[in-house]
């Protein structure tokens, strides 16, 4: 795999919010750890008061949205490198498959690996895998995202 282009991880929320189209209270990713031309590594510390937390557990929509926003963050950084001033709006067009093995507790840290499988015009196919702090896989998915603007 290519080496990450990022010199250091992007951990500042302010900076993350410049790279993704989603805004609070619907932000489900908070760091970009690695970036290559076709892969990304992201993370999220699940706030206890996150809107998609229920009974102290991050819900299925939360986990899937986190994977989608991880892709969004990858794309946002790609746009930044290309000189775009603000991220394009993008959303999920289809989910080929998603599998959820277990739901993380609020307060825990997610690490997600995204891989760009194909890009055609404004549609991107992406694979994602989310792990907990111990490296246990919580969920995997393959989806297509669509950008507009």
């Amino acid at each position, binding site marked *: 795999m290519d080496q990450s282009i990022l010199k250091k991880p992007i951990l500042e929320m302010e900076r993350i919010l410049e790279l993704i*189209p*989603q*805004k*609070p*209270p*619907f*932000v489900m990713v908070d760091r970009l750890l690695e970036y290559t031309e076709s892969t990304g590594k992201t993370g999220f510390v699940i706030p206890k008061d996150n*809107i*998609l937390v*229920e009974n102290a557990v991050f*819900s*299925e*929509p*939360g986990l*899937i*949205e986190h994977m*989608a926003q991880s892709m969004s963050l990858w794309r946002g950084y790609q746009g930044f490198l290309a000189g775009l001033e603000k991220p394009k*709006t993008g*959303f*999920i*067009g*289809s*989910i*080929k*498959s*998603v*599998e*959820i093995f277990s*739901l993380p507790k609020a307060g825990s840290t997610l690490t997600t690996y995204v891989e760009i499988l194909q890009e055609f015009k404004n549609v991107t196919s992406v694979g994602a895998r989310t792990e907990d702090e111990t490296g246990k896989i919580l969920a995997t998915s393959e989806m297509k995202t669509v950008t507009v603007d």
Partner: protein
Amino acid sequence: MLLKDFYSVESSRQEGENYISLIKINKDHEIYQGHFPRRPVTPGVILMHLFKEDVERRLNISLQLKKANNVKFMAVVDPNIDNELFLEYHFEHNNQEIRLKGIAKTSEGISLKINAIYGLI
């Protein structure tokens, strides 16, 4: 419900093996402040979740989404254009899981197709 005050169930009925529920979305819900500023789009993951909550209510059980395949978002659900959504689905049920196939539609047409497997918890 996962999201407080996000929607209400206006009607709920069964026709043979098919279940039909009419959902009314609260267009002023705070999620639209973030998804997206100046362009309200109901998040696809939230639309998917409506099916789970609807089955939970009907059967009075708790479920967890295990798998979903070929989920297609055919049209954006902007609650300012149309905030009424029909969920139509059928499912198979055993002691461990529920396999559901469904669509969500507005007066404009089909907005979502879903195939999902939920585990009973």
